């Protein structure tokens, strides 16, 4: 661990609750499609609408995806039950949400941040999503004071897994890492598309502050955080707000607060006093869920390689640090297999990592050229037949045309390796022709080198390797 993160002598204690929509074909308790973005109220049925007499039937695929999440987060999967969480809101047609309460599906796991710190997972349970309300008129899109509200029940009954993290997060950056890593895991295991912008992944943060060694402070729950970047900002703002209260002699009030992206602040949503009494009780319309050991084992066995394992693999293949930028970004983009394929085709794996990172991962693009084509280009580069500048030019052309033979492209461009003797002769010619610049350079005026290099490159028609030219000039200066 790095140094203890503090703001004005206070430690942060942060726990995240993340809701993810599962990528199932149908809803958690009915046969309606689970699909985002269609016309309102087109994926509904008696169960979704909570019509009198309709009954829920648990979706096996949702259970399987929820188990995948639990197992990927090192949880124990257990026999569990469903409860009704009773509260009245227009977008919840039954006036209760079917959720899990005292006995959830997944318990006691952890998520490892790229740097190695483990954040505990208390539980990851199944529940149904609500519909979506749009409040028209009034101010701020709130129900209060609006002229009317529109409700889309397409989202009602969509399966969610709520992942409740332990308050092991100590910095805004760790919170961002946690959510980023979690997102990658969810995508890797096919459980969710986990898009915070579309709401298929939603994050609430419980934030409190304390003096080192002091008991836990009063926490506030921050809602409406819609991006990883906002998460870091919201946590930092909230911590500073609480510290200011304490320093001002006031107490932090336990409450739910709303993050406002526009003013960069959190605002009171509701206090503990007006919190709902959910009157949980065992859902009598469902029976306990007890996944057989063979089912759990099969789900575990079918889990794909997780991002942490992919980073370790790429790190050990390339020697680059597993939490370094290149490995992180390439694995996050899911391009590590491609890097290894390029290496398998004969290229130096470190150069492969650099080129994939620069040409694709950082551009937000997906490798579309045959691994062998990139490998051939890298071989030319590492054997000295292309300078690094030429290599980039050739690669850009291969990328632009979706593949190609590096040697042919290099030849067409007239790129051919200059032997050292030819280059040295060219350097000597330029030194002779530009005696003034050379004298200044020898007198220690580094700026003068630019003119010399430029002249040499011009003389070589761009074939000279800039690095080799600089090295030659330096050695001749002595």
């Amino acid at each position: 661990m790095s140094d203890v993160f503090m703001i004005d002598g206070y430690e942060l204690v942060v726990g995240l609750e993340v809701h993810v929509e599962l990528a199932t074909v149908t809803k958690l308790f009915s046969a309606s499609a689970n699909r985002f973005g269609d016309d309102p109220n087109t994926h509904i049925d008696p169960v979704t609408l909570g019509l009198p007499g309709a009954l829920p039937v648990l979706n096996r695929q949702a259970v399987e995806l929820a188990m995948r999440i639990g197992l990927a987060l090192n949880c124990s999967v257990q026999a569990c039950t469903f409860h009704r969480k009773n509260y009245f809101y227009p977008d919840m047609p039954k006036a209760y949400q079917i959720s899990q309460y005292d006995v959830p599906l997944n318990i006691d796991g952890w998520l490892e941040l790229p740097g190695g710190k483990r954040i505990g997972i208390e539980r990851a349970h199944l529940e149904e999503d609500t519909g979506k309300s749009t409040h028209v008129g009034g101010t701020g899109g709130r129900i209060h004071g609006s002229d009317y509200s529109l409700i889309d029940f397409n989202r009602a009954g969509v399966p969610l897994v709520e992942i409740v993290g332990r308050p092991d997060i100590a910095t805004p950056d760790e919170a961002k890492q946690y959510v980023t890593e979690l997102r990658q895991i969810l995508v890797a295991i096919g459980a969710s598309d986990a898009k915070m912008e579309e709401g298929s992944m939603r994050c609430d943060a419980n934030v409190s502050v304390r003096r080192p060694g002091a008991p836990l402070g009063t926490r506030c729950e921050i809602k409406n955080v819609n991006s990883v970047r906002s998460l870091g900002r919201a946590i930092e703002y909230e911590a500073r707000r609480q510290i200011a209260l304490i320093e001002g002699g006031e107490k932090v009030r336990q409450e739910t607060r709303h993050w406002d992206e526009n003013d960069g602040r959190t605002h009171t949503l509701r206090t503990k006093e007006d919190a709902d009494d959910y009157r949980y009780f065992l859902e009598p319309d469902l029976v306990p869920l007890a996944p057989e050991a063979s089912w759990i084992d099969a789900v575990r066995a079918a889990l794909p390689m997780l991002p942490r394992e992919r980073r370790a693999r790429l790190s050990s293949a390339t020697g680059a640090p597993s939490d370094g930028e290149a490995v992180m970004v390439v694995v996050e983009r899911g391009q590590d297999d491609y890097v290894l394929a390029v290496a398998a085709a004969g290229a130096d794996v470190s150069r492969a990592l650099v080129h994939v990172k620069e040409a694709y991962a950082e551009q937000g693009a997906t490798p579309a050229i045959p691994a062998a084509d990139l490998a051939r280009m890298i071989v030319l580069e590492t054997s000295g037949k292309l300078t690094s500048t030429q290599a980039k030019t050739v690669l850009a052309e291969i990328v632009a045309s979706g593949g190609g033979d590096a040697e042919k492209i290099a030849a067409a461009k007239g790129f051919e390796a200059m032997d050292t003797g030819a280059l040295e002769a060219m350097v000597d010619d330029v030194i002779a022709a530009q005696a003034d610049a050379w004298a200044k350079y020898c007198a220690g005026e580094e700026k003068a080198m630019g003119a010399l290099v430029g002249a040499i490159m011009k003389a070589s028609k761009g074939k000279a390797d800039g690095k080799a030219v600089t090295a030659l000039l330096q050695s001749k200066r002595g």
Partner: protein
Amino acid sequence: MTELSNAVDIANAVRHGSVSAVAVLDEYLARIDARESSIHAFNLVTREQARAMAAKVDADVKAGRDPGPLAGVPIALKDNMCTRGVPTTCSSRILEGWKPPYDATVVTRLAEAGAVFVGKTNLDEFAMGSSTENSAFGVTYNPHDTTRVSGGSSGGSAAAVAAGFAAASLGSDTGGSIRQPAALCGVVGVKPTYGTVSRYGLVAFASSLDQIGPFTVDVRDAAVLLEAMSGHDPLDSTSIPQPALSVQGSLDRDVKGLRVGRITDLPGGSDPEVEARLAESFDALAAAGATVVNVELPSMKYGLTAYYLIAPAEASSNLARYDGVRYGLRVDAADTNAMYMATRAAGFGDEVKRRIMLGTYALSAGYYDAYYGKALKVRRLISDDFARAYQKADVILTPTSPIVAFPVGAKVDDPLSMYLCDVFTIPTNLAGHPAMSVPFGTGAHGLPVGVQVLAPTLGESVMFQVAAHLERVAPGGAK
């Protein structure tokens, strides 16, 4: 025609073409026309639908297709079972105008068996009551004495069969709502094992207790209906994954050697005539070679209390969806919250409001352990008591109701006295067991008395075996 009074005979006659389903229906509709105004069994008589169904049955017979074991049998449905396109009210104003877009599973199954639905019957609002006086649409009167109640909550279904408006009917039983009105109206009423009949499409009162069952004129009809409607339904997660019950085979089986349990600590307070009929039923079984054994159910006396916490708790959750927004009644008001309140104030009757408040309270933070939590423990104790009792007995007999049908209005202002009507029926629901009421002679004022046969989970065969025997030896018959 009129000699065809039971479902089995009607179905046989229709299947063999000796009578048409339409002719049978006309007979029943004529009886409805003659007497419904003094009984009020129905919220809605579905004449046109019934004629269409009967005509289809006749067409099937004509074409050589078997319409099924309930071919042409006129059946009435309690108005808390969803019927596609046909109003389903639960006898509540809150559901005014609502037509379900789907059929309950039982409705589908009976239709597939050839039944003809004659109408939707009256009930205590949302099945909350024991007299059908809590209906928003008026009382259902007892066909044996129209100054008296029909029992409840399935009073309309019981009265419909007793009055000959339908050959059979369906009710729902949460704490006795089939068996008690069956006893008061002198017909057979069955609450099957929880999970044998699908609840899909039954508007929920208390989901862990609700179970659909038949009212019939005799035990054999009840067996036939139960076989037609039971069996696993993938749409109901609490439905037991097994095929339909098979009980007809046990109807003629000798009761010799069966052990019949008598509860020694049965709560008292029953009419003396009711106690006398129960004693006679034990004697009759003993005379036929059964052994009467004493069993104890010490927790039974807490059943009523536990029930009046568990059922309202579930009801408070089940009924929270009625808000005037998506279906049913809406009373407009200045803003949305005022609309909710006005709708519910106008839409729900007093008993429903009472139970919603009771249940909400019982589940609330700080009260849960003392009320709902304790009630669940009592529920477990009752199941344990029954399990011990059924080690000694194959079935248990009790009165169905401690009293015969009481005058309309006698108990409406005394909810606790009304709740006591279900003291013998409630424990079965808490345990999830089957039980049925068989008419067995008469009590005060010559009114029908029912004896209740209780059996362990999935003990329907032995239950029907004993019920069929009691039916054969029952004294005299009701007035």
